[in-house]
């Protein structure tokens, strides 16, 4: 699968994630409303009975009041408990098991108890509130949770399926366009390779000592242009087909490879009068030669591209890595973390697509290499590639 299709798949998954998240919010809200509704039904089912209990208590406290509290025995019942509170919510007498009373409600649940608050027409014994308390066996809660889980899961599955179908439907035209574009790029790059290789091969066969310097200069320009196209072709090919390119692991002599790549870019470096210093130390790496060459090519190409006219490139190798330092425009400190982003170009003064360092990071990731960038604006940029000790 191509990169573009992968990102399309990623967008699809992100969209689905968001869709499921919103669905979950809807589900949570409806579950909560369902729970509240069921609770109201259960509470209402107890209401007639609670009203009867309250009536009994009020009748009894009326008798107590009329006796001017000579009869001061508060009624007790086996199937409910009660309490009386005054207008300032001060407890007059209580047999309740919980004192958490919500005076703003009439019928409510507190813990595993149901409270019903009745206000008598007259405040016998000063009681503005008569509170009746009964036990709630909470069997209904289990049934509600079971229903929420069952229907919620079904709803979630249905919504996920519907979302996937809709996303596929909406993204189909985009997917087709991306496929078309990918195929176009693949075909174009393939068609570019043959003529560019022919140009480069023919330039190499020209004996420059036999032709006037003016013509040599022109041939060098053709050579640079052809190598630039070849470089872009290789980058695009890697980007589009890297998953299909198998890696051939071998022991690479980094010094030899760097020398070959420097030689390849020599004409380009000469055109900007850039001198290349090479500080060698034995350096080997087990990886795919072509991919490491791609990595080096991109680093060298950047070092030349963003260097000053008459600048310098310092290449240093060591046992566990190598570094390429230029004397160019540098990278602002806050931008260093972003430079591996695909299609990002910090400086548009030079050509390119902003894919070079993205390819570098992809290859480094594949072979477990670390990339470290040290840079000072208008002074230098040093890219160090290191690998773990064996």
């Amino acid at each position, binding site marked *: 699968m191509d990169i573009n299709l992968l990102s399309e798949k990623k967008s699809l998954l992100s969209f689905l994630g968001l869709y499921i998240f919103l669905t979950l919010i809807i589900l949570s809200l409806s579950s909560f409303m369902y729970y509240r509704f069921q609770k109201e039904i259960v509470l209402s089912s107890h209401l007639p009975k609670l009203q009867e209990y309250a009536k009994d208590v009020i009748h009894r406290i009326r008798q107590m009041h009329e006796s001017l509290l000579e009869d001061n025995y508060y009624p007790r019942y086996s199937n409910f408990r009660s309490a009386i509170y*005054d*207008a*300032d919510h*001060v*407890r*007059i*007498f209580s047999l309740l098991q919980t004192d958490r009373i919500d005076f703003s409600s009439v019928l409510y649940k507190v813990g595993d108890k149901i409270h019903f608050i009745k206000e008598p027409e007259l*405040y016998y014994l*000063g*009681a503005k509130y008569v509170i009746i308390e009964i036990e709630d066996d909470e069997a209904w809660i289990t049934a509600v949770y079971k229903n929420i889980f069952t229907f919620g899961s079904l709803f979630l599955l249905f919504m996920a399926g519907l979302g996937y179908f809709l996303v596929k439907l909406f993204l189909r035209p985009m997917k087709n366009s991306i496929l078309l574009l990918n195929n176009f790029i693949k075909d174009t790059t393939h068609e570019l390779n043959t003529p560019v290789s022919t140009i480069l091969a023919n330039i190499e066969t020209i004996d420059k000592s036999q032709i006037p310097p003016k013509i040599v200069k022109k041939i060098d320009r053709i050579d640079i242009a052809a190598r630039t196209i070849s470089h872009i072709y290789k980058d695009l090919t890697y980007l589009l087909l890297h998953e299909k390119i198998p890696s051939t692991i071998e022991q690479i002599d980094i010094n030899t490879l760097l020398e070959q790549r420097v030689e390849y870019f020599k004409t380009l470096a000469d055109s900007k009068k850039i001198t290349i210093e090479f500080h060698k130390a034995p350096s080997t790496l087990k990886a795919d030669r072509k991919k490491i060459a791609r990595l080096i090519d991109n680093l060298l190409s950047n070092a030349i591209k963003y260097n000053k006219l008459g600048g310098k490139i310092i290449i240093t190798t060591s046992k566990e890595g190598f570094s390429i330092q230029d004397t160019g425009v540098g990278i602002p400190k806050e931008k260093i973390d972003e430079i591996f982003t695909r299609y990002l170009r910090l400086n548009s003064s030079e050509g390119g697509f902003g894919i070079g360092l993205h390819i570098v990071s992809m290859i480094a990731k594949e072979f477990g290499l670390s990339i470290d960038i040290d840079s000072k604006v208008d002074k230098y940029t040093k890219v160090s590639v290191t690998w773990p000790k064996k």
Partner: protein
Amino acid sequence: MAKKIALLFLCLTLYADTFDRACVPCHQRRGVALKPIFFDYLLYYSSERGVKGAMREFLLRPDPKKRLYKKGPIYRHRIDPGTLQKALDEYWERYKVIGKIK
């Protein structure tokens, strides 16, 4: 020292007796029981704040519309607000229902 203690005791006794001195004798003479009046106020005003507030308001500014005890003519009490407050506090403590229900 003994004088000071005696004076304090006298003050406390005088304070505790405000209701008995200022209200009870007159009500007994007129045959108007205080306990039913208290329960009538409780029936309409419920809380300590409500009962004391309504009684104070009626005793200081009698209003026939707010009269709960309807027997006999309206009697204009001659009592200063400070003494009235003390008497009402003792009245509440004597007849309140909180703590007396079993």
